[in-house]
């Protein structure tokens, strides 16, 4: 039996623990596991009841269309965001009651902060960023798809496999308890003999490989697939940030894959890379891990900066201020981000001269970011600003992100870091850059580009409610943590003995309730918008009086993106067409379009990788071997496929495009005053002054 099921038996579920030892701690764990099971059953029931299996298979799971793949990335991000936020709220609730104890056990609390961190970085922020890049970049550069559409699907499959394993760990067994960075020797075989670190390893490794493949794909797409005339200095800024983030992904993801696999060798094969004895050096783990970990945060925040660049220019109806300086700042950040990793372990024991070198590099990286903030403010200066949802997020970002950045400069000083490292001050700092910096930008970006993908806008009022709740919720939850950190409260503590921490902990706990409401408002916003998609529809495709190429096509964007590949003559290509004449002219002739055929390769690799990861975690060797062989076989079978593309006849494109052009010519555009009214059908009437 043990050969068949490995280390699995009936006692590993939280339900068994709740029956054996009833109490708040086990009930919380069993409740979370129950939610996952219920959610899965409800999803299966929903798909069956509405007969959606066929469309799901045909239109989504087997599609190699970059927009659909991007949407699926974002769905993973939002689902995992719900779990991550819920975990954060449970932790805040626990700490609010944690004077001399607290409802959860120390081990359960450790599992919570470990999964919360792993999820938020690798399965919320990363999928949202990669999803948005997937959706937007080919549209902005005038391409029909990614350079490697099927590899794109494989990247998604690998990321989904990692996310699936994290979800499984909630129901079967326990997750790792050493934080999202999983430092050995604690996570080694001697101190953590269970399945926890293995769950972590087999979630992180596929996601890391998938992200690296995404990086290769994005970089090649931007280098090789730009429309004629789209020179580097004409690329929209979001594409620039995507290019830099893509190159960083290629170089930053391999270190984490390598360090996780080395840890796996330690755990499974008795190696001694990071053990206490026999020549192991656990300090090298921290070194390799942060060689990935630090660039990773800039991989996430650079595309966020790209979103802010697009949003600030569009919603103030002005040319982006200081384009060359923004490009140079982006490239500078991409390089300097690789020279600061040691600031994550200033206190590990190296000499002061090593510390200060990395401290100075850390302070320098704040300079290009500061340049960017000034550029965005100058973009808004004397613009005709509309306070739409993305602009509300931008306002919150301006104020809060600068605070977060400044505390980062404070932490860059090793002598100060010695005082506040491992306290809640640090927790406050990185939430202060990641939530206003990355999460706000992703929510703003989803709101901004949603109509382009689905053909209808998101509900403005609900969007604004959500935005304000996120901003206020963030402030109430995380700003008190700075004070708690300075008062000396260590991070990751499941209980504390100083009653002075209680008042601010209660404030932070109340903030967590506001963040839960923000998450609910965000989901309500999506739900309400879907119900009202008729009145919110923008079929002509340009709801915000946009400036870049993606707005020059119908909404939802057709599978082939551009009826005819555009010739680009200016930086804000669509804006130049709108101000210089008629952007809606029928082309002289259409050509056949070659599109990637649907394939199940990504899905097969996803299932095989999930199975292999689960099997490795539980030492079910026959299944692990089958999963790995399955991955290899799937790739080999695909290599023999000769019919990988299909041709869309020019006549069909002409009919589709012609019908849209005709509708555009008979429609009346709306001015910016009517932007958030049902009159907005996605055709902009020129009413804003053109600033040089």
């Amino acid at each position, binding site marked *: 039996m043990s050969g068949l099921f490995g280390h699995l038996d009936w006692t590993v579920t939280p339900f068994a623990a709740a029956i054996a030892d009833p109490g708040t701690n086990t009930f919380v764990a069993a409740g979370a596991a129950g939610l996952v099971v219920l959610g899965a059953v409800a999803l299966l029931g929903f798909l069956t009841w509405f007969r959606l299996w066929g469309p799901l298979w045909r239109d989504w799971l087997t599609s190699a269309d970059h927009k659909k793949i991007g949407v699926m990335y974002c769905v993973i991000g939002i689902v995992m965001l719900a779990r991550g936020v819920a975990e954060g709220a449970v932790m805040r609730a626990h700490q609010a009651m944690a004077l001399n104890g607290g409802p959860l056990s120390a081990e359960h609390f450790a599992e919570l902060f470990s999964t919360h961190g792993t999820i938020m970085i690798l399965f919320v922020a990363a999928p949202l960023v990669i999803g948005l890049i997937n959706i937007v970049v080919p549209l902005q550069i005038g391409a029909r798809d990614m350079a490697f559409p099927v590899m794109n699907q494989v990247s998604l499959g690998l990321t989904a496999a990692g996310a699936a394993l994290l979800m499984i760990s909630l129901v079967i067994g326990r997750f790792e308890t050493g934080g999202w960075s999983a430092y050995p020797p604690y996570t080694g075989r001697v101190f953590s003999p269970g399945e926890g670190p293995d769950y972590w390893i087999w979630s992180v490794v596929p996601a890391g490989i998938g992200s690296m493949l995404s990086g290769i794909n994005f970089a090649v797409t931007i280098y090789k697939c730009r429309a004629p005339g789209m020179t580097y200095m004409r690329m929209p800024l979001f594409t620039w940030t995507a290019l830099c983030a893509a190159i960083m992904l290629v170089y930053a993801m391999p270190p984490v894959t390598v360090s996780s696999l080395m840890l796996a060798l330690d755990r499974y094969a008795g190696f001694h890379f990071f053990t206490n004895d026999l020549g192991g050096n656990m300090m090298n783990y921290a070194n390799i891990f942060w060689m990935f970990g630090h660039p990773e945060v800039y991989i996430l925040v650079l595309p966020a900066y790209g979103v802010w660049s697009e949003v600030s220019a569009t919603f103030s109806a002005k040319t982006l201020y200081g384009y060359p300086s923004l490009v140079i700042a982006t490239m500078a950040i991409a390089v300097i981000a*690789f020279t600061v990793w040691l600031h994550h372990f200033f206190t590990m024991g*190296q000499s002061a001269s*090593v510390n200060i070198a990395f401290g100075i590099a850390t302070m320098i990286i704040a300079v290009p970011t500061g340049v960017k903030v000034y550029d965005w403010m100058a973009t808004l200066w004397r613009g005709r600003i509309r306070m739409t949802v993305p602009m509300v997020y931008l306002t919150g970002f301006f104020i809060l992100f600068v605070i977060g950045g400044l505390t980062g400069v404070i932490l860059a000083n090793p002598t100060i870091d010695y005082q506040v490292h491992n306290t809640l001050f640090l927790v406050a700092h990185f939430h202060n850059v990641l939530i206003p910096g990355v999460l706000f930008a992703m929510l703003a970006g989803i709101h901004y580009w949603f109509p382009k993908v689905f053909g209808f806008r998101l509900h403005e009022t609900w969007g604004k409610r959500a935005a304000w709740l996120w901003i206020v919720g963030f402030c109430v939850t995380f700003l008190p943590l700075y004070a708690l950190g300075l008062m000396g409260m260590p991070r990751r503590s499941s209980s504390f003995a100083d009653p002075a921490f209680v008042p601010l902990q209660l404030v932070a706990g109340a903030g967590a309730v506001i963040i839960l409401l923000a998450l609910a408002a965000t989901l309500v916003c999506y739900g309400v918008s879907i119900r009202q998609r008729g009145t919110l529809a923008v079929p002509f495709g340009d709801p915000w009086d946009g400036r870049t190429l993606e707005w020059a096509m119908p909404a939802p964007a057709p599978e082939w993106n551009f009826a005819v590949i555009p010739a680009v003559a200016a930086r804000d290509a669509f804006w130049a067409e709108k101000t210089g004449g008629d952007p809606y002219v029928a082309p002289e002739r259409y050509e056949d379009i070659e599109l990637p055929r649907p394939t199940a390769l990504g899905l097969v690799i996803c299932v095989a990788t999930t199975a292999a990861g689960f099997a490795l975690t539980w030492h079910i060797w026959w299944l692990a071997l089958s999963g790995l062989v399955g991955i290899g076989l799937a790739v080999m079978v695909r290599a023999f496929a000769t019919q990988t593309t299909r041709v869309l006849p020019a006549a069909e494109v002409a009919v589709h495009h012609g019908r849209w052009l005709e509708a555009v010519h008979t429609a009346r555009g709306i001015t910016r005053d009517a932007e958030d009214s049902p009159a907005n059908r996605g055709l902009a009437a020129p009413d804003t002054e053109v600033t040089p």
Partner: protein
Amino acid sequence: MTEIDRDRGRYLIGAGLSALLTILAFAAVALGLSRGVALGIIGVTAVAQVIVQLRCFLHIDFSRQKREDLQLILFSLLLLAIMAGGTLWILANLAQRMM
């Protein structure tokens, strides 16, 4: 001289130079030079051979159309230097302080 002839010539030069540099490296060991000198010669010939192969086989040069490839190679070198150099510096420093 046709394009094919030029290509063939370049591949032959590349193959010849690679062979020569390989022989030099082996010769440094076979001739029984001192350890330091031998390691130096092997290092120099290795780097030289990388450059020869990039130039002759992968056609990387300073021309405009190859600039992107060259930039990416140089960027890779820069990052490898930062990562490898940084690791050696940090771990050597830690090891020294563990004494």
